[in-house]
């Protein structure tokens, strides 16, 4: 029995357009799984279904053999932690922010044990010096660490991350990914995250799930990082090179799709 079993999950907001069409996969402890696919293809929706923020219109999701719908929200929160792409800063300290993760375990008030768990995670993430700073005063990379720290403080078995490297520069991307790698191995977690950057994903993940228009295209280890699958998902021709045993995805120079298209971000933004 796997830690997470996703069985034929479908989802739609209304009955007209299906966002997820029959997605099934298993995941186990000590595994980092990247969900890859174009924008607006249902990646975040799939994550939200696993957290029971969205309820699938069909199919089942099991954690440790238990249907997540049969768990109370508090019990589910003890098993699954979620870091969305967009979170808000508020004027509370890093320590308090991480302590929020204890919420599913707290009956009436925070105990000494909760504080100790939070502190051990603050230390392991190297946030000790910042622990009494307000989260609206720290940098984006540090804030992302706090978010992940809060999720680990939940003591989940499954860690769900939506674009953890988004809006970070290349150094912070790798610092964050290395930290995720470290905590996953240390706590034996299973991590499922959506990623945009295939190369960053291959660098740090064990398995890859490709989704296009809500349909699962491929799921597997590094063998699924191949030009055919990537072209069928993203519609772009690539070469997959071997770089010290790592697959490295490089777009081909002559892309028929580029005709007359101006990539986003070129051109004027004005105030």
């Amino acid at each position: 029995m796997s830690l997470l079993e996703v069985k034929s999950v479908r989802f739609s907001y209304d009955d007209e357009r299906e966002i997820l069409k029959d997605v099934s996969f298993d995941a186990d402890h000590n595994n980092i799984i990247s969900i890859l696919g174009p924008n607006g293809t249902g990646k975040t929706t799939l994550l939200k279904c696993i957290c029971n923020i969205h309820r699938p219109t069909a199919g089942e999701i099991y954690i440790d053999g238990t249907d997540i719908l049969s768990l109370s929200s508090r019990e589910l929160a003890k098993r699954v932690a979620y870091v969305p792409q967009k979170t808000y800063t508020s004027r509370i300290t890093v320590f308090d922010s991480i302590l929020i993760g204890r919420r599913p375990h707290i009956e009436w008030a925070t105990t000494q044990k909760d504080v100790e768990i939070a502190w051990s995670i603050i230390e392991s993430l190297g946030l000790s010096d910042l622990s009494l700073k307000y989260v609206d005063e720290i940098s984006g990379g540090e804030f992302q660490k706090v978010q992940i720290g809060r999720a680990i403080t939940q003591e989940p078995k499954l860690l769900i991350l939506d674009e953890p490297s988004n809006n970070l520069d290349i150094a912070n991307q790798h610092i964050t990914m290395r930290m995720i790698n470290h905590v996953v191995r240390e706590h034996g977690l299973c991590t499922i995250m959506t990623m945009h950057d295939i190369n960053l994903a291959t660098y740090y993940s064990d398995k890859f799930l490709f989704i296009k228009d809500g349909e699962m295209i491929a799921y597997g280890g590094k063998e699924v990082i191949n030009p055919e699958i990537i072209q069928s998902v993203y519609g772009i021709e690539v070469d997959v090179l071997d770089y010290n045993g790592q697959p490295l995805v490089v777009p081909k120079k002559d892309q028929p799709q580029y005709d007359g298209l101006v990539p986003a971000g070129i051109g004027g933004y004005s105030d």
Partner: protein
Amino acid sequence: MEKSGIEKFKEHNRKKLLVLIVLALAIIIVSLIVLYINADLNSFSNLFNILFNKNDPSNDNLDRILVWDLGIPRILSAILAGFALGIAGAVMQCVLKNPLGSPYTLGVSNAAAFGASIGIVILGGGIITGQSGVTITINNPYIVAISAFIWSMVATGIIILLVKVTKVSPETMVLAGVALSSIFSAGISFLQYMYNEYALSTIVFWQFGSMGKATWEELALIFIITLIVILYFLYNRLDYNALDVGDDVASSLGVNVNRLRLVSLFAAALLTAIIVSFMGIVAFIGLLGPHIVRRLIGNDHRYLLPGSMFMGALILLVSDCIGQNLMDFTLPVGIITSFLGGPLFLYLLIRGYRKKKIDIRKLISSRGGSK
């Protein structure tokens, strides 16, 4: 030896607790001073004697009445209203994700005042005697309170609908509040017009607020309702912290976000209604209290909620005392709190606007840089 991180954290929390204790002590001290000033006593020992030896024959009978029948109910009114409006403001700001949210700025207060007026004038909840001076006696506080509550729920319902359906910005939400306030003010004016002879004092009373109306029995009712709602809010203090991070995070932490938001707004409306029913509209306490406390000890609701209550009570006590003694006649407390709250409100609007501008700049530069 250097302190461990946990000890530093606890020390940090003790400082916040100290702020709360200081505020609570300030309420007690200010209450005594206000009581002393308002009853026009000779000395503090005189006041203490009346307070703790009520039936001592050496006390002047008039002083005893001034303290026990006028002074103390007035102070308890201010404290209860400050507690209720302060915490209602803090909770509304959290669940609506809107720093400008408060019972007054979102039109809930005006709606409650309209409901209270209807309760008194149309539903027969009050007797208005118009011959010698104008006095209103609320002979059925329940009808007045229920009517105030129903109408404040109407305003709250409209705000909830706006949030659900249109995802309005904080500023737009306040504009909607202004619109709602105008509608309900017009409703009050309409009642004034229709019941012209008697209703004038009702209007003045409800639109400017007064701490001097509630009787001991009414205070008991206000106390019970306020206590229940405050306990509910305090019980959920950690959930409000989770909600501050975002709805999705709160849900993934096991918080029933929709229920928390709806019940909290409902409870905040109930608090507003009960205060407005007996004391009229006291503007901006729900905005002033929480924002001053946020400055002092941050947004952690474990400290913010009690802090907002205490600060609300303190502001109201002082404002009421100023209103009582500044001029030869009594100024309604709502006027004083508006003078204090209006500038803060403007400041928050300007700061929100500037912050948004900075956010847009950041977004542009980060996009430009990554491509």
